[in-house]
């Protein structure tokens, strides 16, 4: 579904991604790990079309479409979802209004009529249960005054509402206590099907105990320098990143 070839990207003239390659197929979970500053969040930003980043070289295709040609909203409607590392607070925009607008935009893209009020409420209720989200949160403004854990749950709730083909979870585990982590991971696992895929960006192996990856990649200095199965994550947990840095820099 997703094919990234030799991707280079800059922010403010500084090159962050320096030739990244990655292939993701339906049904797969890919974990991307790596030290601070390796370019993990940049990858998420570039995939979703954040204009702060310039792609200077390379290709990204998503189900055969040139992703780099699409606006952020069209990428979303094509089925790419980002669970933000830092979800944004939007005072004055209610969760309900926000979600209904988003759902209907997705439907419009697929030439479907807007969702009926009853269907929408049913969908909200169903998906809220998935992440055990408090009813009250849905009536508030988007992320406003939410705790760190509530914000992350809200991300997974939105993911459930929009049913993406590819979800990118950017440090979804950061700032979560163990119970919240379990709830969030459970949500992600329940949404898993043979047709969708996930890219899980994380610092620590901890999240991967709950969301078990098919592949683990190490991102270092703007490139994927090592790939393996889920055991690679355990090895990284045990040995840190220094040995990989040495391997790469030593070459």
């Amino acid at each position, binding site marked *: 579904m997703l094919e990234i070839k030799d991707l280079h990207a800059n922010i403010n003239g500084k090159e962050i991604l320096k030739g990244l390659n990655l292939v993701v197929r339906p049904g797969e979970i890919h974990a991307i790990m790596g030290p601070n500053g390796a370019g993990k969040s940049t990858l998420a930003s570039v995939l*979703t*079309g*954040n*204009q702060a980043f310039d792609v200077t070289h390379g290709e990204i295709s998503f189900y055969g479409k040139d992703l780099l040609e699409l*606006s*952020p*909203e069209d*990428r*979303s*409607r094509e089925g790419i*979802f*980002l669970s*933000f590392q830092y*979800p*944004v*607070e*939007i*005072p*004055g*925009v209610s969760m309900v*209004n*926000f979600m209904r*607008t*988003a759902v209907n*935009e*997705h439907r419009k*893209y697929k030439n479907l009529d807007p969702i009926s009020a009853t269907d929408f409420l049913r969908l909200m209720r169903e998906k809220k249960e998935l992440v055990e989200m408090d009813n009250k949160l849905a009536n508030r*403004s*988007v992320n406003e005054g939410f705790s760190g854990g509530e914000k992350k749950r809200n991300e997974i709730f*939105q993911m459930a509402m*929009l049913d993406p083909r590819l979800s990118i979870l950017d440090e979804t585990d950061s700032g979560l206590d163990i119970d919240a982590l379990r709830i969030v991971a459970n949500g992600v696992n329940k949404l898993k099907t043979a047709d969708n895929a996930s890219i899980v960006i994380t610092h620590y192996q901890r999240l991967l105990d709950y969301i078990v990856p098919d592949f683990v990649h190490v991102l270092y200095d703007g490139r994927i320098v090592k790939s393996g199965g889920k055991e690679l994550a355990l090895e990284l947990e045990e040995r840190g990143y220094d040995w990989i840095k040495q391997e790469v820099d030593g070459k």
Partner: protein
Amino acid sequence: MLASCCLPLTAKIMEQQYINLYKQYHEQIKANAAQVINVSRDASFELFEKLGFPTSNDENYKYSDLKDALSADYGLNINRLPIPVNPYEVFSCDVPGIHSYLFFVVNDGFYPVNDVRNQQLPEGVIIGSLSEVAKSHPELVQQYYGKLSSAKKDGLIAFNGAFAQDGFFMYVPKNVQLDRPVQLVNIMRSDVDFMANSHNLVILEEGAKAQLLVCDHTVDDVHFLSNRVTEVFVAQNATYEHYKLENTHIKTTNLSTLLIDQQTSSNVLANVITLHNGVTRNNIEIDVDGEHCETLLCGMVIGDKKQQVDNFTSIIHNKPNCNSRELFKYVLDDLSKGGFTGKLYVARDAQKTAAFQTNRNILLNKTAKMRTKPQLEIYADDVKCSHGATVGQLDESAMFYMRQRGIPEKEARLLLMYAFTGDIIDNIRIDALQERIKMLVEKRLRGELSKCEGCIICQ
């Protein structure tokens, strides 16, 4: 000698023309107005002759550029010729479910009431033409007319005092509470460029309660200038809500002065909304002259094209133990210009005053301009006062967040702007009106009202 040395030549010539006009026709002006409102007319004229029209050199008019507006040659209707329009037929107000008592001022004159809905006013309540009531109840008008306005050293207010002959009058006696909002629609209707000066008087006696919705509209596509002064007296324990909605056109100059006096334990809400206009100056001054008063003053502006809106506000705390809150928000696009002044005065004896002021502005375009000035003068030492003003753009990170969820850029901008104005709309305590304003604001932000040349609330 004219004080207004800095008006451009044409405006200066016009100013002199009005002065000559008054000198020549003041007998006619007086003959067509009630005795009690003629009493202070000459004094107002002399003050105007001294002050002239305000210019941006006047501290309080720094953000109002009235040069062009005051250079046009407007007609006046000093002989009170009736305007051939029946607003009750032309405008069927359709704010769904507002059930207001509906009144019209067409240009500068109160339009005779002939609407059955207005016959159900509670006993003792008087609503009508200032000029008529000044004849039928001279003692009532005399007691209040000009009591707030004649003390002001302001060229526009003085001009109004010299030329105004009529306006809207409302009197709510002791402990009478109006069950429905009163709606005053100011309509400008003329085939030639036209100026209207009207003077409104609103009196709430002890324990009275009323809501007034003032809508400013224009009908014809000519240049209009309105210079209206409204004096409001809110007695002890009375509750008054004043909503002003302007939805006029780009050729309109709307100069509006709202003066409110609050007595002990009274409660006032004023919400001034400018949706569409040409050049607007709102002068809102609230004097808190009793203890334990509550004052909420808020407003919003949506501006684009070359629209100009200057809200000059003043809250004067003369007595202790009162709370006031002020909140103004502007969304400006294109070449529009906004101005805000928040004067807050706390007298030495006004201890335990709590006064908070906020002005927040969004500029959608680099060409739009906003100038904002808090002006706090606090002479008491045991008070809680704060002020804050911000000028910024829409939150880019929020925009991206929404777009990542599939919401198109245009819609995301709209949601953010709409959200920004939300707390002003929340301060409309007439449900039907709140719903309608929500809709109008959304339409306006979508650009669907930009061609509006007439009344959209009543048509």
